């Protein structure tokens, strides 16, 4: 029984890693604009996906086709995880999460397929990008629920105070909103709607008027890009503003941790990693603009975004009590 649980535990962590790779590949598909390089779905150029000859994976096909193949593997493995969880002796809520993960992965696959069939409408592609992160969160929750750490913590009363949990919860929500903003920005082609940093449209303070738009579009013309609208500039601006707010919030969380939780290594360790991830993420975001959406930089920016979300969520899990009821109680307590 125990050995089985050990394998399940490892498998759930492996699934998290695999999902990160899948997000990386999905981001690569968007960065290279090759989402429609395979025009049919679920077949690939009329062939069963895994029968498509690898030497024909030219241009955008290598990204899109690899993404599809890995996605199918993740889908199958998620089904495996779900069945495994249902047949194991784990708690009901983890079993439910297993079912949720499977539903999410199927929905994600169908969304991806529909996006191809309907020629990538903005909202569908955006939703596909957002659901990927929800799926990741479910997997992290499963992996944490199965972990030794969680098992160990169940017998301790080591949860942080309600105020801290609330703070981390809000932070995680803010990161999630940022991922939605980023997704909208990507799929509305607004990634370079403000093409300069630290200036914005030529001045330090974005005036958001016609002059700023003209300045941006003149730059875009010089670099052989299509003109943007004010809406695109707004979407882009909000991604930057929100990043700044996240950074401020993280600063406050660090301050709070320094004051109260230096004695909790689990929280400090996770927060440390989160700080590094956020710093890296901001640098990558700036680089995405400065290197004009260079494929690798942009793709890493999306992937590290998923890491930031994952780490914030892990911090939340590690700060919270181990059951839902005590979690709610803890939040209410001052």
């Amino acid at each position: 029984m125990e050995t089985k649980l050990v394998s399940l535990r490892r498998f759930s962590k492996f699934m998290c890693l695999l999902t990160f790779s899948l997000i990386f590949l999905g981001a690569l598909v968007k960065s290279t604009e090759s989402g429609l390089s395979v025009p049919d779905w679920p077949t690939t150029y009329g062939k069963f996906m895994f029968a498509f000859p690898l030497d024909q994976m030219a241009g955008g096909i290598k990204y899109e086709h690899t993404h599809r193949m890995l996605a199918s593997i993740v889908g199958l493995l998620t089904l495996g995880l779900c069945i495994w969880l249902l047949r194991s002796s784990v708690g009901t809520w983890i079993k439910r999460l297993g079912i949720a993960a499977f539903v999410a992965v199927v929905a994600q696959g169908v969304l991806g397929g529909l996006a191809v069939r309907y020629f990538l409408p903005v909202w569908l592609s955006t939703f596909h990008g957002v659901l990927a992160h929800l799926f990741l969160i479910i997997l992290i929750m499963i992996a944490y629920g199965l972990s030794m750490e969680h098992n160990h913590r169940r017998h301790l009363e080591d949860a942080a105070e309600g105020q801290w949990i609330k703070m981390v919860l809000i932070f995680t929500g803010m990161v999630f909103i940022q991922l939605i903003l980023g997704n909208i920005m990507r799929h509305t082609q607004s990634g370079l709607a403000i093409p300069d940093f630290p200036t914005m449209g030529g001045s330090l303070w974005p005036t958001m008027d016609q002059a700023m738009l003209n300045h941006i579009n003149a730059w875009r013309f010089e670099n052989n890009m299509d003109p943007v609208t004010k809406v695109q500039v707004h979407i882009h601006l909000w991604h930057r503003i929100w990043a700044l707010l996240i950074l401020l919030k993280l600063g406050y969380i660090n301050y709070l941790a320094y004051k109260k939780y230096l004695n909790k290594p689990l929280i400090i360790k996770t927060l440390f990693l989160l700080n590094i991830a956020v710093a890296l993420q901001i640098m990558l975001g700036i680089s995405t603009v400065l290197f004009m959406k260079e494929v690798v930089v942009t793709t890493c920016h999306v992937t590290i975004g998923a890491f930031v979300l994952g780490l914030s969520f892990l911090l939340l899990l590690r700060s919270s009590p181990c059951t839902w009821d005590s979690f709610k109680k803890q939040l209410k307590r001052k």
Partner: protein
Amino acid sequence: MVVRHSFVFFFISLMSLALTGYALASGTVSGTIKFDGKAPHFRAIPMDADPICLSLHKEIVLPQTIVLGNGNTLGNVFVYVKSGLTQTDFPIPSEPIVIDQKGCNYFPHVLGIRVNQKVRILNPDGTLHNVHAMTKVNEEFNMAMPQFRKEAEKIFNKPEFMFALKCDVHPWMGAWIAVMSHPYFTVTQTDGKFEIKGLPNGTYEIEAWHEKLGTKTATITITDGATQTSDFTFAAPSQS
């Protein structure tokens, strides 16, 4: 004999007079299109994404968006009669329009086709393309053209002004298509010159369209089948 000859002569004279008269009544609008400003900074297209495409070019390939000739004349501008035509029904040409995907690029880059005219899409490269028509009015399609499929045929059955044709395997491949209900349109070459012939007397709105520089219009009046000149200058977007 003589009588018959003179009759034939008279008849031919009459016919040619009528034909000349007809020809006189149809005018021409012509002009030159220029670009004012600094051309964009183009980076070479990274064709190494597909070794077959890469092998087809010895030199670097640049985007076809701003194509300039001597004296800043502008190519790839679509010029057409936007309004003023009284005739609504025109015979559909039986000749198909050809779009070639040679060297992993579309030729021509900007083109006009007629409603219900056949469009032949060629794939001479021996690589895999997909032809994605990003239409709004006509039915959108994303058609696979594997290496063995050398040719495909498509028809657009509704007028639609300008949609992009894309290949998502090779993201740099792009063309612009206008589906026209009449034959009065043309596309400039690098010399920037255009000529639209056979216009009946009347007043017309002429529009010049460029994918990055937008549109310019002019109103012209054709009388007695004369030629009207209408030059256009497109300015690069300015910082102010």
